């Protein structure tokens, strides 16, 4: 038996295609199917060129192939509106769902913070929060792992070109989901998230600011070490994750300034916000594969 988990990507757009390119290099996940709804779409054609099987009739078009092709993991890069149905149909067949939409019907997953826990429990649907969440919540967690954080605030600044119509039509969803995850995953008692879209040309690299208010005087040495360690953890799957300044301390306020450069697979390098989503999604599936290979978890039985 191959150690690789076979995968389907739903949504052949920018995110799905970038994810595919990363997945083709993976030792743990093998892309088999690309699913879309438009037979003429560029994304499906590209996937075919890369040797994938494709379906243009949505998730329904591949349900009959899941068992025979031994598909174990799915990535949903469509929209929150259709995710719940996609997830239900595939979960029923024993496919683990990695949710890259804002639907968030499963628990939030930020790999260096709580992926291990989700994988060990064989969580069948995990949600990748938001781009801003992936870039900042590791830093909130780095502080809250040292001492209690009563307030965590993140500011994500992204280039206009990297923000698609879905995010624009429901920008409140970014704000709510990210602030919720700053609390639930980051460990802050209260969270706040701000997103700024900048149209400068050439496009600016994604940048993120993280502020935490600690309950007691911050232990500067311990927090600084924790932040540096966490940066290294994220760099394992996003090499362009960079600490620009900080942590700096002002009373009980701890501030960290980050920049995220993408790998430039399908999406341009400045779109670190999109890259960190696809990289985190893939990292998540890889962890499930590793745990299954080591026998730490047992994938759903197949007849």
């Amino acid at each position: 038996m191959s150690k690789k988990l076979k995968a389907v990507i739903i949504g052949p757009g920018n995110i799905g295609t970038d994810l595919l390119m990363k997945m083709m290099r993976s030792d743990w996940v093998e892309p088999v199917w690309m699913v879309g709804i438009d037979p003429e779409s560029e994304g499906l054609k590209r996937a075919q060129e890369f040797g994938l099987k494709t379906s243009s009739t949505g998730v329904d078009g591949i349900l009959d192939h899941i068992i025979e092709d031994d598909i174990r993991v799915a990535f949903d890069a469509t929209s929150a509106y259709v995710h719940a149905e996609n997830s239900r149909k595939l979960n029923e067949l024993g496919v683990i769902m990695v949710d890259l939409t804002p639907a968030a019907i499963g628990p939030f997953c930020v790999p260096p913070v709580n992926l291990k826990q989700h994988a060990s429990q064989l969580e069948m649907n995990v949600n990748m929060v938001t781009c801003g969440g992936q870039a900042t919540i590791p830093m909130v967690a780095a502080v809250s792992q040292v001492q209690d954080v009563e307030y965590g605030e993140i500011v994500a600044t992204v280039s206009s070109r990297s923000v698609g119509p879905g995010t624009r039509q429901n920008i409140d969803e970014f704000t709510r989901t990210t602030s919720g995850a700053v609390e639930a995953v980051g460990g802050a008692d209260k969270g706040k998230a701000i997103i700024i879209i900048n149209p400068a040309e050439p496009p600016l690299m994604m940048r993120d600011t993280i502020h935490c208010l600690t309950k007691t005087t911050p232990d500067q040495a311990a927090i600084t070490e924790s932040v540096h360690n966490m940066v290294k953890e994220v760099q394992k799957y996003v090499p362009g994750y960079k600490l620009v300044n900080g942590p700096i301390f002002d009373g009980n306020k701890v501030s960290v300034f980050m920049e995220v450069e993408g790998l430039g697979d399908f999406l341009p390098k400045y779109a670190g916000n999109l890259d960190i989503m696809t990289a985190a999604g893939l990292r998540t599936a890889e962890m499930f594969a590793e745990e299954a290979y080591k026998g730490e978890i047992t994938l759903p039985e197949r007849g």
Partner: protein
Amino acid sequence: MDLKGKNVKLHDMSLRDGMHAKRHQLSLEQMVAVSTGLDDAGIPLIEVTHGDGLGGSSLNYGFPAHTDEEYLNAVVPKMKNAKISALLLPGIGTVDHLKMANDCGVSTIRVATHCTEADVSEQHIGMAAKMEMDTVGFLMMAHMVSAEKILEQAKLMESYGANCIYCTDSAGYMLPDEVTEKIGLLRAELNPNTEIGFHGHHNMGMAIANSLAAVEAGAVRIDGSVAGLGAGAGNTPLEVFVAVLERMQANHGIDLYKIMDVAEDVVVPLMDQPIRVDRDALTLGYAGVYSSFLLFAQRAEAKYGIQARDILVELGRRGTVGGQEDMIEDLALTMAKDRGLI
């Protein structure tokens, strides 16, 4: 210039843009004193919100002395004739804040985006229009793009349900000809029932001249603040603008002496620093930088020893937009490292 008989609706910014100059620390008593004075002077519309709009309360922009809800609940019931507006920046505030403001009795919602990003305002403008509020689309940093681009973005906001569109000179960069061109194109091309507004800053000393140009080109709503209490070198000083409109025989509906007295007796005494075109405020206008960056850059200068002017010029060069206050400390740290100061 002939503005005789033109109607101008003045919109006061002292209690919203002025919050930047006060680091969002106005007391409820000060809010009530200013707003009742303005109401008595005949100002029809007064904005009351955190400087960065509903939900602006944050480490990034500053925690205010009171919540938006507390300010609104203090001011709205005290108004005899004036209506109250609130500002909302998508990405900072959400429709939940909008509903809260509506519940507090706010009549006008102004949804503000960067001048090229109007499509993030659809859900907020749509919701405000659905609640039958006076709904304004507010295009910030309008000096950064062409008149045609402003029009394209204005049409988006209009299509979402805005009944008024603002051309906003957030950096105080524009000169009158640019105001004439942009307001004129909006007036010519938008729905005739859509009102046009102009929001100026005095960083280049042009706020009065620009506001007059806006009225001449077809704007009916003009923002200003008493004694100029606002970000940067302040907004169009309302008492001055009223006196000018009076001389030009435009219809403004304001009691000049009363608004002069609010400026002198109520607003000037509560200022933390004089609101004037100092070298840093002038740099905002000259370099085209968002006016509320002023105090942040001055604080970074005090902390890291990099001149505020140098920081602001670099922020302008990098094309920063409204809301990027976090960039200021980050940049100051980088500049201080490069110069061997830290």
